[in-house]
C-alpha cells in the first residue's frame, strides 16, 4: 500500500520535476540565446549588401552610397565639412587656416597627423590588435600629390570643379618653417574664410598611394581599416585617434530586405538607408531607436533605350509612366500599410516633394532654385504610337531589392501602365547587352548641391557590377579640353545613345553630350545653371527617361547612441560627425 502511494507520490513528483526541468532548460536556452546575440557595445555597425563591397575613392562619385559615406570615415581634408545642430561648418582637418592676404591663402599644415599605415593591424578571429609601426606623418607632399590627382581627374571629380574656382594652377608654395603653405587664389572674388575652407575641403591621400587605385583605404581619420572578419568590413579607432567609439563595421547581408529586422534584432545598430526610405513600423518601439533625416540621395528612374524607341515613342512612354501614381502606390498612400516618410525639414509624408519631373531631381539645387523647371505633362499617352509591349527591365542584385520588387509590380499593374508594360527583374548581363526597352534604375548617392553628377547618369557604362564612366576628351586648337563625341557609344551608356547609330537624333545627341560636358566641367555658376537648363530642356525634348521619384533619406539609430552626439544636416555626409558619436551612458 504504501509503495502504491509512494508510486503515486513518485509520479506526482516526477511530473513536477519534469516541468521544472523543462522550465530550467527553456530558461537556460533563453539565456544562451540572449548571451549568444552579437555584442555591439562601443561599436557602430551598418549593414551592406554582401556582394557590393564599397569601393572607396574620395575624389570620385560612387554608385554605392555607402562608399561615398566612407570617405568621411577614412579621409580628412585640410578642412572637413561637418554637420552641426545649426548647419554645416568647416572644421580644421589636416590644415589650419592662417589667413589671406591679397588673395594669398596661407594654411598651416597640422603636424602629428599620421597616416593609417603608421599602424599595424592584426586580426585573430574577431580580435584585432593594433600596434604602432614606423610613423608616416602627413606632409605637404601628400597635399601636392592629392592636388595633382584631382587635376588629372578633371571634370570627373567634383573636387576639381571646386578647386578650379579658386586656383588657376593646382599648386602651392611652401611649406615654410612654420609648416605653412600658400595658395595663390584667383582675384575675381572676395574670399571669405568659409569659402576658402570649402574649396580646400577635398580629401587628402598619401603621396605613396597610386594615382589610379581601385580603392583607397589609407587615410588620417581616427578610424583605420582593419582586416575583414567573415565579410564584416571593419574599422578600428587608431591608437592616437580621438573618436568616442572604438569600432565601426559594415555587416554583410544578402539584400536590404532584412535590414530593418537586423537593426531591430541588434545585428546592426545604425541603418542609414532603410528600405523605401520610409519609417519602419518595426522600429517604432519607444526608447529603442531614434531616427534622423537628411536630403535625398537616391532616385528611381526609367531610362529609355534610344536604340529601340524613337523620340515620339519615348515621349508617349514617358507620359504613360505617371510618377505621381507610381509614388503613391510605392508608398501605399491611403492604405493601411502606408509607408510614412520624414524629410530633412521634419515634415512627414510630403510624397509630392519626392516626385521628379526632370533629369535633375526635385531635391536638387537646380530644381529647388528654379534653374530647371519641372516638366509636367498631364496629357494622356498616345498608346497607338507605342509598341504593344514595353519591356522594362531591372536588376535587383545591386541594392534596393525591396524597392525594385515593389516597383516592378507597380509597373506591371495595368491600372498604372495601361497594360502596355512588362517589367521584370533580369541579370546584369541583360542590362549590359541593352536587352530592354527601358531600364528601371536606382541612381544612388546623387548630390543635391551644385555638383549633381550627370556623368553618373549619362556616361556610366551599363554594367552594374562596376562603376565606370566612359568619358573621352580631346584638346582643341586653342588648347582647351573638349568632349569627344565618341563618349556616347551605344554599349557604353544606359540609354544606348550613339550619334553614329542614330542619324535622326545625331545633332541632339551630340549637343546633349556637349551640354553635359559643359555642365560638368565648368567652374562658373552661371555656366552650371545655363548648362543645367540646356541639359534638362534637351533631355526633356529627347525624352530619354521618366524620372519617377527620389527616396527619402532617413537613418535609424539604436538608442545605444546618444542622439545629441549625432548630427546630420542638409547635404553633409551622414557620417561626417562619426568620430563624435558616443553611446548613452550605462544606466
Amino acid at each position, binding site marked *: 500500500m504504501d509503495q502504491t502511494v509512494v508510486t503515486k507520490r513518485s509520479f506526482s513528483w516526477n511530473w513536477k520535476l519534469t516541468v521544472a526541468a523543462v522550465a530550467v532548460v527553456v530558461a537556460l536556452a533563453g539565456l544562451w540565446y540572449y548571451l549568444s546575440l552579437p555584442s555591439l557595445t562601443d561599436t557602430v555597425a551598418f549593414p551592406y549588401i554582401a556582394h557590393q563591397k564599397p569601393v572607396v575613392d574620395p575624389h570620385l562619385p560612387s554608385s554605392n552610397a555607402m562608399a561615398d559615406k566612407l570617405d568621411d570615415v577614412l579621409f580628412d581634408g585640410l578642412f572637413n565639412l561637418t554637420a552641426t545642430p545649426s548647419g554645416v561648418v568647416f572644421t580644421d582637418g589636416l590644415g589650419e587656416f592662417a589667413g589671406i592676404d591679397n588673395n594669398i591663402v596661407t594654411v598651416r599644415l597640422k603636424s602629428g597627423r599620421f597616416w593609417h599605415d603608421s599602424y599595424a593591424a592584426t586580426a585573430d578571429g574577431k580580435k584585432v590588435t593594433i600596434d604602432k609601426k614606423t610613423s608616416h606623418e602627413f606632409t605637404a607632399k601628400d597635399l601636392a600629390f592629392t592636388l595633382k590627382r584631382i587635376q588629372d581627374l578633371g571634370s570627373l571629380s567634383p573636387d576639381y570643379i571646386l578647386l578650379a574656382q579658386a586656383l588657376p594652377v593646382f599648386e602651392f608654395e611652401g611649406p615654410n618653417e612654420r609648416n605653412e603653405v600658400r595658395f595663390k587664389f584667383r582675384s575675381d572674388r572676395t574670399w571669405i574664410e568659409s569659402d576658402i575652407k570649402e574649396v580646400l575641403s577635398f580629401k587628402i591621400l598619401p603621396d605613396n598611394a597610386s594615382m589610379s587605385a581601385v580603392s583607397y583605404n589609407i587615410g588620417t581619420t581616427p578610424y583605420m581599416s582593419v582586416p575583414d572578419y567573415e565579410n564584416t568590413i571593419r574599422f578600428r579607432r587608431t591608437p592616437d585617434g580621438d573618436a568616442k567609439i572604438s569600432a565601426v563595421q559594415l555587416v554583410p547581408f544578402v539584400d536590404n530586405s532584412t535590414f530593418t529586422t537586423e537593426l531591430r534584432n541588434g545585428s546592426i545598430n545604425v541603418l542609414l538607408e532603410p528600405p523605401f526610405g520610409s519609417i519602419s513600423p518595426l522600429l517604432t518601439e519607444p526608447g529603442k531607436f531614434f531616427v534622423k533625416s537628411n536630403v535625398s540621395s537616391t532616385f528611381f528612374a526609367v531610362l529609355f533605350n534610344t536604340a529601340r524607341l524613337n523620340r515620339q515613342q519615348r515621349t508617349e512612354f514617358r507620359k504613360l509612366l505617371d510618377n505621381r501614381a507610381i509614388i503613391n502606390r510605392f508608398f501605399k498612400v491611403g492604405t493601411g500599410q502606408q509607408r510614412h516618410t520624414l524629410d530633412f525639414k521634419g515634415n512627414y509624408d510630403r510624397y509630392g516633394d519626392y516626385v521628379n519631373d526632370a533629369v535633375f531631381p526635385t531635391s536638387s539645387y537646380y530644381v529647388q532654385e528654379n534653374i530647371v523647371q519641372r516638366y509636367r505633362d498631364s496629357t494622356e499617352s498616345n498608346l497607338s504610337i507605342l509598341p504593344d509591349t514595353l519591356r522594362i527591365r531591372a536588376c535587383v542584385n545591386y541594392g534596393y531589392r525591396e524597392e525594385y520588387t515593389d516597383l516592378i509590380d507597380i509597373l506591371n499593374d495595368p491600372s498604372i501602365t495601361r497594360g502596355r508594360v512588362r517589367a521584370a527583374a533580369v541579370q546584369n548581363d541583360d542590362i549590359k547587352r541593352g536587352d530592354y526597352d527601358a531600364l528601371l534604375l536606382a541612381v544612388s548617392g546623387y548630390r543635391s548641391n551644385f555638383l549633381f553628377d550627370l556623368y553618373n547618369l549619362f556616361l556610366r557604362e551599363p554594367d552594374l557590377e562596376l562603376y565606370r564612366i566612359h568619358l573621352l576628351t580631346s584638346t582643341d586648337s586653342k588648347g582647351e579640353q573638349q568632349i569627344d563625341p565618341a563618349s556616347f557609344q551605344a554599349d557604353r551608356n544606359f540609354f544606348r545613345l550613339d550619334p553614329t547609330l542614330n542619324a535622326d537624333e545625331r545633332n541632339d545627341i551630340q549637343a546633349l553630350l556637349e551640354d553635359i560636358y559643359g555642365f560638368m566641367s565648368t567652374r562658373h*555658376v*552661371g555656366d552650371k545653371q545655363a548648362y543645367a537648363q540646356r541639359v534638362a530642356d534637351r533631355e526633356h525634348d529627347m525624352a530619354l527617361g521618366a524620372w519617377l521619384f527620389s527616396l527619402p533619406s532617413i537613418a535609424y539609430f539604436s538608442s545605444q547612441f546618444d542622439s545629441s552626439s549625432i548630427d546630420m544636416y542638409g547635404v553633409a555626409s551622414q557620417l561626417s560627425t562619426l568620430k563624435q558619436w558616443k553611446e548613452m551612458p550605462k544606466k
Partner: protein
Amino acid sequence: MRMRLFAGFVLLALSGCATFKELEPVPPLLPSERGFIEIKNVQDDFLLQKDGKYFMKFPRPEDLHYYILLETRTKKQVGSYFTATFNDGQPPIVPIPDQGPGLDSLSIFPADSTHPTYFWVIDRVPADVPLTLRYRYVPQWRYTVETKYDEYRRTLSENMVDRTPYQSMGPGYDFSSLNVDAALLDLRARNGRIAAMNEALLNLADVFPPNIATSKDTMYARYRALSADTKDELAFQAVYDAVLTVLQHERQTEGSFSAFVDRAEEFGKFLGSKDQYRKPIVDYLNSLFVKRLEEAAPIYDGQIAKWYSLSTLKLVPNPVAVLGLYRSCGADVPDNLSNELTYAEEFNTSVAGLQSADKKYAAARSALDAKKPWPDNSYYRGLLATLAEAHKDIPTNELEKIQTPQAYGLTDLVSRELRSITKRIADLTAQYAQARDLVDKINEHRTMDDYRGIVQLLRDNRDLSFVVAEYPDIDELMLKSEVAQIRASLDAGQWRETENGLANLQSDRDFLNPSQIASKKNENVKSLEGDLFDRVKKATTERAEAFAAKNAMTLGNIPALYADSAFLPVYVLTFSSESQARLLQKRRMMDDYLNQLKYVRFPESAIRPLYRELTRAPEEHGVEEGKAILAHARFYTGTDKTIRSMIDECNPATAKQLVKPKDYRRIIVLPVNDAPKSSNEYMFRINVRIPSDARFPVYDIDIKVPKEVAEKSATAQWFSGMTLNKKAIKTEGHMRITAPSADNEYEAQITPVQVEKDKDNIIEVTFKYSGYKVLEFSAMAQEPLIRKN
C-alpha cells in the same frame, strides 16, 4: 788731455787735407818795376815733384796797367794758371789769360794794384822737374812800346803817299790823265794800315801813367815822335783823298745832269772848304762846276713846256741845289733859268691856292654825300664858313704876267680853273644857305616830334636832295610815331580807335618814300593788327575766364551763366589788312576759343570742384552741386574722360560701370525731382560688364544701401522698382533680393544675376525717400561660388 789730443788730430787731419803746396821764394818777390829777377828757394830752384800741386804768391803791382812776366823753361812741361783768387784749387777758379800764349817760355799776365795778391798755380806736374823761373813787374805801355816801336815805324814809312802828284796839280795839269780811281785805291789802302797803327798808338795813351808827359822817359819820347809823324801823314792823305774823291764823283756824273746836281751839295761843300786845298785845284773844279750848271736851263724849259696839270710842278733836278751850287761857285744865274724858275714857283703857288680852295670846297661839298643824319642848326653854317675860307684861298692870277711862251697852255689852264672854282663855291654856298634855312625849320618840328611836318618840309624841298638824304629814317620815324599813337589806343583798350588808326595807317601815302616804307608799314600794320587781335582775345579771355572762375562754384541757374555776355568777344573785329576771309577767320578763332571755354573748359572747371565738393561733403549742398554738374553737363561738349566720368557719376540715367569683380564701386545718387517733395524720387543704374571666361556669367550683386534708406526695409520694400535690362527683378524662382539690414550692414544682395556676356547689363533701381539729399550707395559684383552645401 783728451781734448788736446783730439784738437791735435783735427789739425793734423786738416793739414793733411791741403792739396796745393805753396812755393815761398827766398828772397821774397818784389813788385817794383825792374828787369827779370830769378826766383829761388834760397840758392836753389824749387823742385816740382811728379803729381805735386803748387802755388806761388805774387804781390800786387805798384800801379794800374802792369804786366807780371814769368819766364820759365817748364812753361810747356807743367800745367799752370795765373789768378787773382785762389782757395786751394776750390772753385771758382778765374784764370787770368796769358797775353803771350804762343811764347814757349814767357807768360804775360796783366795785373794791377786793385788785387792784394796774385797766384801762380801749378796744378799738373807730369814728372819731377826743377823750376827755373824769372819774374818781372813792368807797366804795360812800356812793355808795348819796347816790343812794338820798330814795327810801327816800319809801317809808317812803308805806307806814306807820294805827295808829288798833288803838288803838281794846277794850270797846265792834265787832270784827265790822272787815274783817279787807282790813286784813290792805293791811297785808301795805305791810309787804312796807318790808321790802324795810329789807333793802337792812341789806345796806348790810355795806359800812360798820369805824370808821363813831364817825364823824360826815353821810351815815351820815341812814342811821341812816332805819333806826330803818323798824324802828319794821315792829314795829307785826308786832303788828297778829298780832292781825288771830288774828281772821281764829277767824272762819274758826266752825261747825267741830275746825277751831277745830286752831288751839288758835296761839290758846294768842297768849294766851301777851298782853303784846305791848293788853289789851282779849287779853281779848276769851280770852273768845271759852272760849266756843268749850264745844262739846267734847257732841261727845266723842257719840263715846263711839257707840264699841263694843276698839280705842283716839281722841276728835276732840284733847282734849289742848282742855285746853291751857282752860289758856291760864285757865279750868276742866267736870266732864262731865272725866268723859268720864277714861273715854276708862281705856278706852284697858284696850284697850292687852288688846291687849298678846292680842298675846302671839296670838304664842304662832301657834305652833299655825307648824309649827316639829322644835322643840327650849326651844321650848314659851318659848311658855309668853310666855303668862305675856300673862296679866300683862291689865288690871283699872276702867271700871265710872266713871259713864258712855252707855258701858255699851262697858264690858260690855271686861269680856267680859277674861274671854275670861284663859280662852284658860289653855287654851293647858295645851296647850303637854303639847306641851312630848311634844317632850322626841321629841327623846330623835331622838338615837337612832328615827323609828319618834317616829311612835308622835305617833300617841299625835294630839290635839296642832299638834305632829304640826311633824313633817311624820317619815314620810319613818322611810321613809328603813327604806330605809337595806334599802340597807345591799343594799350588803352580803345579797340575801335585802334582799328581806325590801323585802317588809316594802312592807306596812308604821305610818306617821303611811300613805296620804300610800304613793307615796313605793312609789317607794322600786321603786327598791330595781330596785337589788336591778341589783346581783344586776351581781354575777351580774361573777362570770360574771370567769369568762369567766379562762377565755377555757382549752384543756381546754371543755364543763365552760359547765356552771359562774358562769353562774347569784348569787341567784334571789323578790319583786316589782308582780306575779309582773314577777318572772318579771326572772328572764328575768337568764337572757337570762346566756345572752347564756354562749352569745354568752363564746364570742366566747374564740374571738377563741384564734384570734389560733392564727394567731400555730400551733405553740404550736395544735391545742388550734383544738379549743377548735370546742368553744366548739358552744355559740355568736351571729351575729357574724367569729366565725363564725373557727370556720369551724377547722372542717374547713366549706368555706373561694374567692370571688375569684387571691387565695390561708389554710386552717388541724386534725387530725380528738381525740387524737394515730401517723397522724393531717386534712381540709379548699374551696368554689369565684367570680363569673364564664363559663357553664361552670373553674379551676386551686392548693393550697400544707405542706412537711412535701408533701415525701414524690414517693414516695407526699400526700393520701388528694380530691373535688369528693363525686366523686373523680383524675389522669386532662384532670384533672391536680400533685404538690407543692420545684420548684413545694410547690404542688399541680388543673386543670381544672369548677365549677357560682353554686353551691357543694366540694373536700374528706383526708390523713394523723404529726404532731399545726396545718397551714397556702393555696389559690387562677383561670381557666386559653387559650393558643396
